[in-house]
């Protein structure tokens, strides 16, 4: 069935189709519609789940941690400051090996106060141990949440599904909604190997000495690294069932490209159009959208950009005192593996639109070394007054 819905509505619908059993969430712009929709689905009985109204995002995630530990399929949604408030509990969810799936609507952090798209909120939670995925369009939101449960429950790790605030949360698009029967076939009920069991009491997250602590972390890293392949496998299964592929990286004409524009989130569409325009002008351009950023899809990424001489990275975020976070990730990935030059651009933070024209301008500035954008540290800032 096809319907015109917003990204936030698609996320709620995906949670319903995944038959989540517990939802604990606190509303925040621009995620609110998801929470409203889920609350409504539970109230009308369309979703048989426990809906917990909590007093903060910290409690929302704490409730999800508890629920997930009892073996329930658990969903929550947040944004920006809410995500920041969850920080401690994000570690708890990942360290507890709990396959929670969470929507995060990417929004700028204040002050100054701003409600619009910015990736610093989720990227500053990179090291909490959550799998992080960035969606390109509304269909991607719905499909990715279904794939996410499959991957999360296999890896026993939580997944954060990121949606560009307003650009994706509030954009209505035509979405192909799979039937419940099809989804049930793809995503059976969660069967945890371990869960809280009153008949076999255990302490969860008990004190652990240095000997085992390091070993347990090492195993978590091993399991996290395996997620790139696990995602590809689950995405392939999904493509076989529903005819839509959601790979870890979405590359466009990158095989023979000299310059590849790398983005995360909704800017991927603009990057694709920019690459097409540049090709028409005679520039061998390609584009690449990173779906996963944790774990970093090292294999898919290096394979996709192996011929590139220039990599133009769009960062809708900034790590103060260093540079854009995605650019750092790419440099770390390519170090010793490629001689490509990485050009980091900080643009579209706090809601500025990313158009194909702006991206073409960035590519020109990267290749020529001249342009209107401001070079600062390792990054070039677009549309700023200095």
């Amino acid at each position: 069935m096809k319907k015109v819905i917003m990204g936030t509505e698609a996320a709620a619908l995906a949670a319903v189709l995944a038959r989540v059993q517990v939802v604990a969430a606190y509303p925040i712009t621009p995620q609110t519609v998801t929470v409203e929709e889920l609350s409504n689905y539970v109230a009308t009985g369309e979703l048989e789940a426990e809906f917990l109204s909590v007093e903060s995002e910290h409690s929302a995630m704490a409730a999800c941690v508890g629920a997930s530990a009892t073996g329930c399929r658990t969903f929550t949604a947040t944004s920006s400051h809410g995500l920041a408030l969850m920080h401690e509990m994000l570690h708890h969810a990942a360290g507890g090996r709990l396959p929670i799936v969470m929507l995060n609507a990417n929004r700028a952090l204040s002050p100054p106060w701003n409600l619009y798209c910015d990736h610093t909120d989720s990227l500053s939670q990179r090291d909490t141990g959550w799998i992080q995925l960035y969606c390109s369009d509304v269909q991607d939101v719905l499909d990715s949440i279904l794939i996410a449960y499959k991957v999360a429950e296999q890896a026993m790790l939580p997944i954060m599904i990121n949606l560009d605030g307003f650009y994706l949360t509030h954009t209505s698009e035509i979405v192909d909604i799979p039937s419940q029967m099809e989804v049930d076939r793809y995503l059976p009920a969660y069967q945890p190997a371990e869960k809280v069991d009153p008949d076999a009491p255990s302490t969860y997250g008990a004190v652990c000495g240095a000997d085992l602590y390091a070993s347990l972390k090492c195993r978590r890293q091993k399991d996290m690294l395996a997620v790139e392949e696990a995602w590809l496998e689950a995405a392939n299964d999904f493509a076989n069932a529903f005819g839509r592929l959601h790979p870890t990286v979405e590359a466009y004409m990158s095989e023979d490209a000299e310059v590849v524009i790398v983005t995360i989130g909704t800017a991927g569409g603009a990057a694709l159009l920019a690459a097409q325009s540049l090709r028409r002008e005679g520039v061998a351009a390609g584009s690449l959208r990173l779906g996963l950023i944790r774990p970093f899809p090292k294999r898919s990424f290096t394979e996709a950009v192996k011929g590139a001489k220039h990599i133009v990275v769009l960062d809708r975020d900034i790590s103060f005192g260093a540079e854009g976070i995605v650019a750092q990730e790419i440099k770390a990935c390519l170090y010793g593996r490629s001689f490509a030059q990485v050009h980091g651009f900080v643009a579209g933070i706090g809601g500025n639109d990313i158009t194909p024209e702006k991206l073409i301008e960035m590519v020109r500035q990267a290749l020529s070394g001249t342009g209107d954008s401001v070079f600062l540290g390792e990054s070039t800032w677009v549309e700023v007054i200095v």
Partner: protein
Amino acid sequence: MEKCKIESIKQLPVMPLTIEDMTWNKTGTWRLLTPVWMNKIAPCIRGCPIGQPIPQFIQAVLEGDWGTALVRLLEVNPMPGITGRLCYHPCQTACVRKDLDSAVSIKDLERLTADKGGIPRLTRRAAKGRKIAVCGSGPAGLSAAYFLAMKGYLITILEPSDRLGGFLRDLPEGRLSSEVLEREIRRLISVSGLDIETNASEVRARKYDLVLLDRTAYPSESPEARALEKFASSAGQYLDVENKEGGAGFKVVQVAEAVALGRWASNQTEQILGTAFTEESQPFTALDKGELKFSRLPDQKTIDLLERAKGGPDEAAATEAARCLSCGTCNLCQSCIIACPDACCRLDEDEGKIIIDLYHCKGCGICSYECPRGVMNMEYLP
């Protein structure tokens, strides 16, 4: 504790949870304050001259268990059908609910319990082989006789007239019908197993270890009152139920007080005969209203029980009973069990109480904070 030997990470579950019994870790040693499950005397109980366990009997009404509800009352009051009609209900004046909407109709629930509870079986204490005569059968005399019989004494009520009840007989039919009075007295006799001698003219004092006299049974100057005075002179030594000097400390102005007086006299008798049970003294402390938390009205459990009662014949009673907040009285709502982060609170279904695992309780106090009825105390027990 012997350290676990881990050869491979695969021996450990993916979730970071303990793989062996952790009860060796006696976290109770970390505790400073100790939770103490202790029922308090609710304001209504304190208001009641008889001290009836009001939250307890109402809880049984809520569960549709009229028999248990009546047993709770008969343990302290031999004639709830009479007090349930005549009492001016100081319990309701003290009801906490009064400050929220209106007091629970305790008196009506008491009357209903007496009317619906039948004749339950109460356990009497083992026979002591001591014989006591109770002269006069007003509510105080009946009450003294009843409690002493329940305590294992052989009781004979000596009544100068041909019927039991004393001044209760003279009440207008509209206030207390003779039918109800007969029924209440019949039950009192049946439950306690005491003997009756109506139309008695004297006391053969030698037959008894002690003689009690109920002067409150009849108005002074009545023929029955004069007959009782004859009993007094034929008995020689006797204990006056009213015992004006150093007595129960209150004047009998109504039936509930007469019942209370009878119970007090029964305790006095035991003291005199040296056969008192010390376990009677209740370790409860009185409840301070400040200890109660009513932010979560109405209580979840209450709603559930009310739902169950819906449509049944006792719906109105259950609806009224559901309004009782069970102040200071554990109604096994199990909030503490749900709230305890260390799973240290446990329900003892047989005893109907909450047991705390003090080997592992860290004394965090969440149970006490959560308890909506002020039952769980946090105490410093060195």
